[in-house]
């Protein structure tokens, strides 16, 4: 293992920004009061919560009263979807996509066992959504449409503003899991029809364990956690003051660095991607033809397997992730690649590099230096290669899942 860490797995989690770490420190020490208290000591903390709420609202182009703090992106997603179903108990249909994060997908699968109908929208080979398919999927009893803003694996961005308008035209609420998009693409909810939006702190340089849900003013809402009066009765439980302060500070930084993310970081990503495609034969970018996040590159290398690549790169200090089967403990390539129809020869050898504002030219240089020989080495070990027959293909008959 080398001493230098080249962290290129920012869609998994990000480092806590030093400014964020600094901002939250006092709340582990002298400022431990409960903001609900009537005395000055606890009550003073309320103003820090208010400030954080304003900062998060500003990043989203929303009003502070539209922001609800939660414990994570998953809680935000669950809160949004359950709220819509409770607010419209007569409606029994949901629409989502086949490529959502498990936070949405597994909840929808569960709801199917509870008498709800769910339509899962497909994507094309580049990972794009069809709005016509969405229009056709909507029914009079569709309670909510939940479509992610950007895909966590490929970085492909969905036309959520248009999707929200379409959902509204049929009387359905619209929620978006924007965990990967917030801080990476400009968002202005004041101008949109989006009713609810989920975000997660640890994807934008705040710590793990804090998230938020945007709920457009006037949207019917039913709480997920019930109990005390916190968050104006919409999310019970004593506020996680240090982490909320951290999220507020991270939101301020994200807004400041939005230009850098879409300029310098995007240029780094493009150099990494183009460099790898040039240096390694039989490589392809999944979703390369679609509108994408500026920081994500999802590259498949033919005839080699993802876990092997990751472990060899890890030895060189390069941290990335893979949608391949072996790394996740599941045995098949990710549902995202299956939905896109990524060729099987590439799907198992796909690596995701995801950058952040802390990524450097040195990180990209390391990838361009280390990845090609690793792929070459693994291809020497692999029984498959260009022009060689693929054995065993007749055995794996395609069948319906």
């Amino acid at each position, binding site marked *: 293992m080398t001493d230098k860490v080249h962290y290129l797995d920012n869609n998994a989690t990000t480092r806590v920004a030093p400014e964020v770490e600094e901002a939250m420190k006092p709340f582990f020490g002298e400022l431990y009061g409960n903001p609900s208290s009537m005395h000055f000591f606890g009550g003073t903390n309320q103003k820090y919560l208010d400030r954080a709420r304003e900062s998060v609202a500003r990043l989203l182009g929303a009003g502070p009263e539209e922001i609800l703090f939660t414990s994570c992106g998953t809680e935000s997603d669950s809160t949004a979807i359950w709220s819509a179903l409770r607010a419209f108990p007569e409606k029994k249909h949901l629409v989502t996509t086949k490529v959502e994060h498990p936070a949405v997908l597994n909840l929808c699968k569960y709801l199917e066992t509870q008498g709800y109908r769910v339509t899962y929208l497909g994507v094309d080979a580049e990972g794009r959504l069809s709005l016509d398919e969405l229009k056709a999927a909507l029914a009079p009893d569709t309670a909510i449409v939940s479509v992610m803003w950007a895909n966590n694996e490929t970085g492909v961005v969905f036309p959520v503003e248009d999707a929200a308008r379409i959902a509204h035209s049929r009387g359905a609420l619209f929620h978006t899991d924007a965990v990967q998009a917030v801080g990476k693409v400009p968002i202005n909810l004041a101008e949109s029809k989006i009713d609810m939006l989920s975000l997660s702190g640890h994807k934008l340089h705040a710590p793990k364990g804090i998230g938020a849900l945007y709920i457009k003013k006037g949207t019917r809402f039913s709480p997920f956690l019930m109990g005390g009066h916190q968050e104006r009765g919409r999310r019970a439980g004593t506020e996680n003051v240090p982490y909320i302060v951290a999220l507020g500070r991270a939101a301020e930084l994200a807004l400041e660095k939005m230009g850098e993310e879409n300029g310098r970081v995007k240029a780094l990503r493009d150099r990494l991607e183009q460099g790898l495609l040039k240096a390694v034969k039989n490589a392809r970018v999944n979703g390369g033809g679609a509108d994408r996040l500026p920081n994500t590159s999802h590259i498949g290398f033919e005839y080699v397997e993802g*876990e092997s690549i990751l472990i060899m790169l890890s*030895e060189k200090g390069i941290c990335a992730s893979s949608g391949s089967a072996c790394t996740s403990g599941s045995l098949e390539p990710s549902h995202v690649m299956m939905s896109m129809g990524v060729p099987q020869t590439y799907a198992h050898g796909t690596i995701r590099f995801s950058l952040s504002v802390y990524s450097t030219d040195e990180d990209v240089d390391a990838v361009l230096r280390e990845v090609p020989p690793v792929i070459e080495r693994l291809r020497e*070990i*692999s029984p*498959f290669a260009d022009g060689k027959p*693929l*054995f*065993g293909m007749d055995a794996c008959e395609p069948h319906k899942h």
Partner: protein
Amino acid sequence: MWQYTEKVYEYFKNPKNVGEIENPDAVGEIGSIVCGDALKLTLRIDKATEKIMDAKFKTFGCASAIASSSALTEMVKGRTLDEAAKITNQDIAEFLGGLPSEKMHCSVMGMEALEAAIKNYRGGKAEKVIIGENERVVCKCFNVTESVILKAIKVNKLRTVEEVTNFTKAGGGCRQCLGEIDKLIKDYWDQEEHRDFSRMTVVEKIKHIEKVLSEDVNPKLKRDGGWIELIDLEGPKVKLRFLGMCHGCPSSGATLKNVVEKELKEKVDPSLIIEAE
């Protein structure tokens, strides 16, 4: 992150015997690119002694698949085919100091490739041997046959569906076959546990003997108008009584030997001593 042993890392990073033997005496190909791992094993075999003189592999798969393949080639070199055929996936895993349970299927892939290569050699290399060809496929996602699953259950003493998935990948895709795998496990252990007569309780022993009498013995005796019943059980001694037309029949001695004793020894326990009044 998987907890791999140092030896797995060593055999992954610096695998021994990578490659393909030119004009090999035996070839074993297992898995496919769709299944996520695949192994091509080639062997050089001394015809006179059936000793494996050289072994090489090429593997598409994760770190533990590459390490398991390399370990296999090291283990078979210098052994005769009969010796090599005894290598189980447990042996491969042990050679590597153990594998994470979710990765045991990598060692099973090694065992299967070896099995395919030996069949390929013994079949006169007429054509490529596909393990499990013409057999019932249980898991369609990963093309896992019933016999592969049963062998994994037996060799590794598997008791749960999750374990079978870890060892064979069966059930790891669409999960439609989980019920079928569960049944295979239950049936296997039901049969295994019943076979061990000495570990049954007295009541179980009596029930088992009576079941064999009523299902396999008495239908034959009834053709001649007789039947037999259990009177007592003393250790290995089974005391029976002939009834109906069998009672006092001169050929009942032969029936006892050829029908009753044969069935009970075969279906209950070979150490039984059969006596009849």
